[in-house]
C-alpha cells in the first residue's frame, strides 16, 4: 500500500512539473528575468556613463578653481587639468594637442574662458573681499589710536587748568572785522563745516599762549 501511495505521489509530482513546463506564464517569467538582466546591464552601463559625467563635472569645477588664480600663470598645471578634462569629457571636444607652446596657451586660455564664462565674474567678489579687509583694518587702527589718546593721563591734568582761547584774524586777511572771537566756534564755522572749502588753517601766537593745549 505504501509503495502504491509513493508511486501516486511521484506521478503527481511529474505532472506538476509537466504543467510547469507547459505553462506559458512560467516561460514568460523566465524571459522577463533574462530581459531584466539585460536591462540591468544597460542601466549599469548608463550609470557608468552618468558617473563619468559627474566626474567630468568635478573636473570642470577643479579646472574653474584653478583658473581663479589669475589665468595661465602656471601653464603646466593648466595643461595637465585640460588634458584630464579632454580625456574624460564627452561634451566638449577641445583640440589641445598643439605642438607649439603659444598655440597651447591660447587654446587653454580659451577653454578657461569657456568654463568660467569669459572671466571677470570671479575677480569682482575677490576685489570686494580685499576692500572689506582694508576697511576693517583701517577701522581697527582708528579705534586703537582713539584708545591710545584717551588713555593718556597728561591730557586730563591739562584740562583742569584749561581756559578756552580767543582768536583774531591775521592782519593781512581781507575781512576788515578784526574783533576777537571764540576760536573754537570760528574754526568749526570756517574749517570744519561740511560746506567749507578751506583746507589749511595756521594758528600762530606767542610761546605759552595755549596753542598746543588747544590743539590737544
Amino acid at each position, binding site marked *: 500500500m505504501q509503495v502504491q501511495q509513493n508511486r501516486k505521489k511521484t506521478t503527481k509530482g511529474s505532472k506538476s512539473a509537466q504543467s510547469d513546463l507547459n505553462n506559458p506564464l512560467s516561460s514568460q517569467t523566465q524571459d522577463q528575468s533574462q530581459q531584466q538582466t539585460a536591462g540591468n546591464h544597460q542601466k549599469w552601463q548608463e550609470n557608468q556613463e552618468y558617473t563619468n559625467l559627474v566626474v567630468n563635472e568635478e573636473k570642470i569645477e577643479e579646472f574653474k578653481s584653478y583658473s581663479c588664480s589669475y589665468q595661465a600663470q602656471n601653464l603646466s598645471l593648466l595643461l595637465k587639468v585640460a588634458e584630464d578634462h579632454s580625456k574624460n569629457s564627452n561634451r566638449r571636444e577641445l583640440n589641445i594637442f598643439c605642438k607649439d607652446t603659444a598655440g597651447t596657451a591660447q587654446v587653454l586660455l580659451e577653454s578657461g574662458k569657456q568654463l568660467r564664462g569669459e572671466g571677470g565674474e570671479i575677480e569682482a567678489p575677490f576685489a570686494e573681499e580685499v*576692500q572689506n579687509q*582694508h*576697511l576693517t*583694518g*583701517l*577701522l581697527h*587702527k*582708528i579705534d*586703537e*589710536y582713539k584708545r591710545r*589718546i584717551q588713555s593718556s593721563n597728561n591730557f586730563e591734568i591739562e584740562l583742569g587748568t584749561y581756559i578756552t582761547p580767543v582768536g583774531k584774524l591775521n592782519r593781512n586777511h581781507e575781512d576788515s572785522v578784526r574783533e576777537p572771537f571764540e576760536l*573754537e566756534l570760528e574754526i568749526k564755522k570756517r574749517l*570744519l563745516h*561740511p560746506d567749507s572749502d578751506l583746507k589749511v588753517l595756521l594758528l600762530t601766537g606767542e*610761546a605759552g599762549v595755549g*596753542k*598746543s593745549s588747544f*590743539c*590737544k
Partner: protein
Amino acid sequence: MLVDWDESEWFPILVDLSKLMRSLSEEKRANLAISEILKQELSLTDDEMKFLQESERNELHLPRFLLIYDGYDQILRTGAK
C-alpha cells in the same frame, strides 16, 4: 570742543612735529609726507593708504582725517641752532 566732537565727520590726528622729527632719519625728514605721518601715528600700511586714496570717502563711511601739526616753532628754533 572734544565733548561735542562729531566723530563721524572728522578724525583728528595730533602730530607732535618735534617728536616726529626726532624719530625719523635725515632722509625721511627732508621728504616728510602725510604718508609717513599716517604710518607713524596710525600704523597704516602702503596698501591701506592706497586704498584710502583710490576710494570714494562717501562709500567708505570713514571720517575725514584732520591732521593737527603741533610744535612747528620748536623745529624752526632747533633748525636755527
